[in-house]
């Protein structure tokens, strides 16, 4: 929006004041980040002797080498695997459920929809102990497989909600004319609705992807061994090993955030849009 032409002293002061506030907010939001990246390049004692915001003496990559040699790649690969499988299931199954909920008339439609959407408020803790027991008795405790079910189940409510609203926006005529041509509901879904839902699916993929990438509660409860843990737990495990070596922990943190930062740099608009799609819930 355009600024007005007249600019008196009062509005100048106002703008100055707003600018100061905006800068303050900006500094607060990035200082912890700077702290993290800057210190990740320092030696173990350098940080304490020279002060936390002094530039590192040299571009010291030994912390990163140590982290990568310490099995970090394992966590990373595990996270990718869990993410890929969970996300595929969430998007496909979510779209399957959203299709009849958005476009069919049948008994209980609104009730089923309300029930699914209401699940958004459910805390994972009410399911934690039974899921833990279930995982143990089925024999998949401490495996990546154990994480997929809960991840998918807790992402479905918001996904069904968003996809249902998205599919309501696809004109009904498309379907009606296809039906005249003798196309059944199943073919209609795969050949028309699913392709038309792509934009909705891609923003939803980002929203759910970020959440699954960062998921902690189930991963912490359902896995135990280093080989089977996902990225959020890498920090946890490294912390046990290097608690007193702050720069080392900062290197682990920087590495766990790196994929998100790359995503942000290369797909900023998509990411913000994805997060906005999560914002409409409620």
């Amino acid at each position, binding site marked *: 929006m355009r600024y007005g032409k007249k600019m008196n002293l009062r509005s100048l002061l106002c703008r100055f004041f707003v600018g100061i506030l*905006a800068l303050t907010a900006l500094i607060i939001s990035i200082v912890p980040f700077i702290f993290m990246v800057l210190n990740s390049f320092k030696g173990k004692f350098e940080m304490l002797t020279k002060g936390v915001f002094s530039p590192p003496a040299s571009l010291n990559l030994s912390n990163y080498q140590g982290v990568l040699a310490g099995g970090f790649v394992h966590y990373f690969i595990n996270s990718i695997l869990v993410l890929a499988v969970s996300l595929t299931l969430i998007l496909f199954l979510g779209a399957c459920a959203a299709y009849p909920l958005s476009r069919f008339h049948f008994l209980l439609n609104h009730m089923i929809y309300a029930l699914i959407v209401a699940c958004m408020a459910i805390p994972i803790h009410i399911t934690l102990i039974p899921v833990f027991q279930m995982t143990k008795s089925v024999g998949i405790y401490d495996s990546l497989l154990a994480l997929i079910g809960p991840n998918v189940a807790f992402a479905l409510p918001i996904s069904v909600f968003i996809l249902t609203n998205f599919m309501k926006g696809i004109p009904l005529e498309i379907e009606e004319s296809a039906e005249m041509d003798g196309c059944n509901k199943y073919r209609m879904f795969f050949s028309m609705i699913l392709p038309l839902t792509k934009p909705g699916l891609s923003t939803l993929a980002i929203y759910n992807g970020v959440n699954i990438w960062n998921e902690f509660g189930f991963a912490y409860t359902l896995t135990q061994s280093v080989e089977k843990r996902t990225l959020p737990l890498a920090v946890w495990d490294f912390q046990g090993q290097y608690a007193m070596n702050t720069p080392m922990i900062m290197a682990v943190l920087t590495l766990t955030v790196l994929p998100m930062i790359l995503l942000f740099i290369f797909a900023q608009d998509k990411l913000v849009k994805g997060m906005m799609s999560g914002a409409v819930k409620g």
Partner: protein
Amino acid sequence: MKVSTIPTALGRRRQNAVNRAAFVFLLPVAFIMVIFIFYPIVDSFLISTYKWNGINADRQFIGLANWLKLVQDKSFWYAFRNNVIIMVMSIIIQIPIGLAEATFLEYAGRKGTIFKVLWFIPMLMSSVAIGFLFTYALAANGGVISWISHLFGGGNIDLLGNQRMALFTVILVIAWQFTPFYMVYCMAAYTSIPTDIYEAAIIDGATKSQYFKMISLPLLMPSIKSAAILSMVGSLKYFDLIYVMTGGGPGTSTELMATYMYKNSFSQFNMGYGSAIAGGMFILITVISLVTMRLINAEGDAG
């Protein structure tokens, strides 16, 4: 679709086909949600009637004893109190700042891009990473706050180790984490206000602050209300960050329902009682969100 309401043989057959298709499409989601959400909820309430460590097969039925203990458990209600404080403070801090940032970006237009990008940054980190980062950034020795204090000639400051300051500090860290979310939320809400309203108001001689007060704010109100509900439910479920950062401590000063439940179940292996805590948490969240939604909707009807 309208054909199905006409009771003809053809209409009925069509409706049957639709029902069958709906069933097939909904089945997988229903299956997963029953296994991982609905059944566990029921099971949690069942487990809460036992004294059980969750590991051995022997468990002892004790009826409602866990629930009676829960109702009288001062630690649980103290944790609940902490959740409520975080809830209120989150709504008071995060939503207004988020709204202010979104408003700033709305007026600044393209020139505000750098602010948008950098304000968004905390959202890229997981709760766990934020928890660890702030544990170190707020450490008494080698932390940011102590560093600032040294600049002004002060000594080390230990915010997280101080019983009185810990909860307040945690609230600020949570605000750091979630304010960008509400910024994005308000940005989304702003895009739904048509620009010609702004033009019309400016032609009529409205100043920017008048426009914000009289037009933007009322139009944003429904979104702000749902943001508040979102923040509320989120605050009552809160777990990751606090578990990592303080573990509920020092003492019980930052204990939450979720951390209390987790410790009882998976550190002390008292899964019967842990289930009761989870059940209490579930009931409180459900009741509070239903009541709030009813209140907000009633208000909307009256207005």
